[in-house]
């Protein structure tokens, strides 16, 4: 336990120190990947622990990002109408854009709107006992609805182009390395907080209820728990993580478009978690970083055929590492444990040990 704890701290320390050993470009990539890691933690919570596979987290990520981007767009328009509205024949700032002039409103709605949407959708869906692949595909339908709407309502959202070309945030120039490093550190801190919070959730009794729901939702009912409440809660929580990731993403990448909230990115989010190991929080984080690094690496070095490598990576992980990268570590540990632990009887100690991390 303590050894594992050390590894965690070392890992986050390495992330913290990244600005000192990475170039600006690599740092900006890592910053982006850490945003993805936040989403991955949320997905690990709902998928790995609770058994809900959402193929629609792009929407929550996107909504969070759009809310933040609306603020940035207004800030960089200096009181004028955002450029894309001008081309689209809008003459006045739409009413729902107005509140986003205030950064606090923008940031809080960047979290609240996705969470409300997630809570609303999941409440009905889970109450009506839609689950398994039905839920997964339904969440995909939600993606289609939002992406099509965001593309179609060009005059309000910037259409396919999305929102881009921001200059400053709270007066600091977004392009300056200093701002970028600060934003990076904020991202690392948020990731750490999300990680610690999720870990606390999963090792508590709450975490065991989640696993029980994954194992057999109906049985949980007959123990007196209402699975709907639990599922809505974790689902909304994971939406909040995705939204937070969206905020940090926009700040660091300077762009959000419907393509980022579409079906493919939503599926990719799940893939990160699968690669890392779905029922392991740190696995999810590592999965997000590794998968995206691999994607960058392959596409930079083999721009023509990198899809073959990426596809191969996914297949390879599924075939040979059923529990993802975290599974490798665990089975290694287990094998070691088996060698050492043969001596004392199983079950002789009732001390609580919690599976996975």
């Amino acid at each position, binding site marked *: 336990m303590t050894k594992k704890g050390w590894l965690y701290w070392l890992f986050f320390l390495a992330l913290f120190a990244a600005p000192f050993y990475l170039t600006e470009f690599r740092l900006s990539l890592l910053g982006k990947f850490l945003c993805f890691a936040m989403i991955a933690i949320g997905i690990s919570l709902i998928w790995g622990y609770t058994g809900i596979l959402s193929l629609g987290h792009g929407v929550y990520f996107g909504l969070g990002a759009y809310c933040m981007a609306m603020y940035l767009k207004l800030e960089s328009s200096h009181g004028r109408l955002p450029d894309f509205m001008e081309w689209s024949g809008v003459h006045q700032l739409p009413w729902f854009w107005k509140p986003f002039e205030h950064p606090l409103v923008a940031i809080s709605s960047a979290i609240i709107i996705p969470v409300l949407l997630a809570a609303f959708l999941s409440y009905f869906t889970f109450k009506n006992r839609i689950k398994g692949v039905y839920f997964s595909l339904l969440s995909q339908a939600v993606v289609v609805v939002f992406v099509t709407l965001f593309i179609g309502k060009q005059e309000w959202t910037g259409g396919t182009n999305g929102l881009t070309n921001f200059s400053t945030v709270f007066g600091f120039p977004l392009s300056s390395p200093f701002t970028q490093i600060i934003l990076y550190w904020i991202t690392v801190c948020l990731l750490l907080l999300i990680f610690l919070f999720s870990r606390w*959730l999963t090792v*508590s*009794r*709450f975490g*065991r*209820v989640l*696993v*029980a729901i*994954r*194992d*057999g939702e*109906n*049985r*949980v*009912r*007959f*123990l*007196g*728990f*209402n*699975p709907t*409440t*639990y599922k809505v*809660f974790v689902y909304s929580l994971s939406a909040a993580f995705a939204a937070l990731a969206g905020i940090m993403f926009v700040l660091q990448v300077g762009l959000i478009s419907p393509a980022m909230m579409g079906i493919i990115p939503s599926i990719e989010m799940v893939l990160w978690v699968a690669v890392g190991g779905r029922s392991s929080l740190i696995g999810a984080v590592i999965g997000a970083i590794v998968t995206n690094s691999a994607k960058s690496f392959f596409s930079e070095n083999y721009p023509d055929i990198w899809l073959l490598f990426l596809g191969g990576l996914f297949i390879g992980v599924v075939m040979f590492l059923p529990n993802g990268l975290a599974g490798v570590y665990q089975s290694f540990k287990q094998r070691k444990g088996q060698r050492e632990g043969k001596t004392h*009887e*199983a*079950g*002789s*100690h*009732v001390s*609580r*040990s919690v*599976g996975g991390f």
Partner: protein
Amino acid sequence: MKPVLMCREVSVDFDGFHALQGVNLEVYPHEVRFLIGPNGAGKTTLLDVICGKTRACRGKVLFYSHDITKMPEHKIVRLGVARKFQSPSIFHQLTVWENMELALKQDRGLFAVLRAKLSREDRDTIIAVLQRIQLFDYAEQKAGSLSHGQKQWLEIGMQLIQFPQLLLLDEPIAGMSEAERERTGELIHEIARNCAVVIVEHDMDFVRRFSKQVTVMHEGKVLCEGTMEDIQKNEKVVEVYLGREEKAC
């Protein structure tokens, strides 16, 4: 005395098949009520209706003074109705200990569970129950790797630890050896000191040994009620259920 459970004219239809047709049943505190009857008589369905898994199309189910006919399952459980299913239904991915921990009588609200800590008493209770169901040595094992009979025991344990007021057991001793049946029977009577128990069972030796009041169901209706002796004399019961040999015993 007020009955714990009162079923009034409960009927259930499955696409035109009448699985239950106006069943009346009253169970009193501390009673161990056996429910027997031919395969397909509707025993499991009746238990399903009581615990909210299946909805009655007619009739009423009262638990003390609560009308639970249309209540969601988890609320019925929180009132104090526990159910053991015919085939073991435990959480395979959790350890035996964790299964027990979830079943503990507790506030099952989201925020309560978030804050929940395992208290000393809870731990002692779990250990006591585990020892009683002989799974203490398996506490750290994943429940999925237990044998059939052990799973049955675990599920019984999970019901015990809820300290319910009404316990519904669907063939609890299926797959248990004689000695274990004996122990289960004793256990059930012990439990009955604090709650009412409804048991569905096909093992007549067991029923004979541990029953006072028996209800026989047939084709979705209650055929007769009484002690095992009374029932063995009932020609109809012999014909549809017991068979000649059993009667002879």
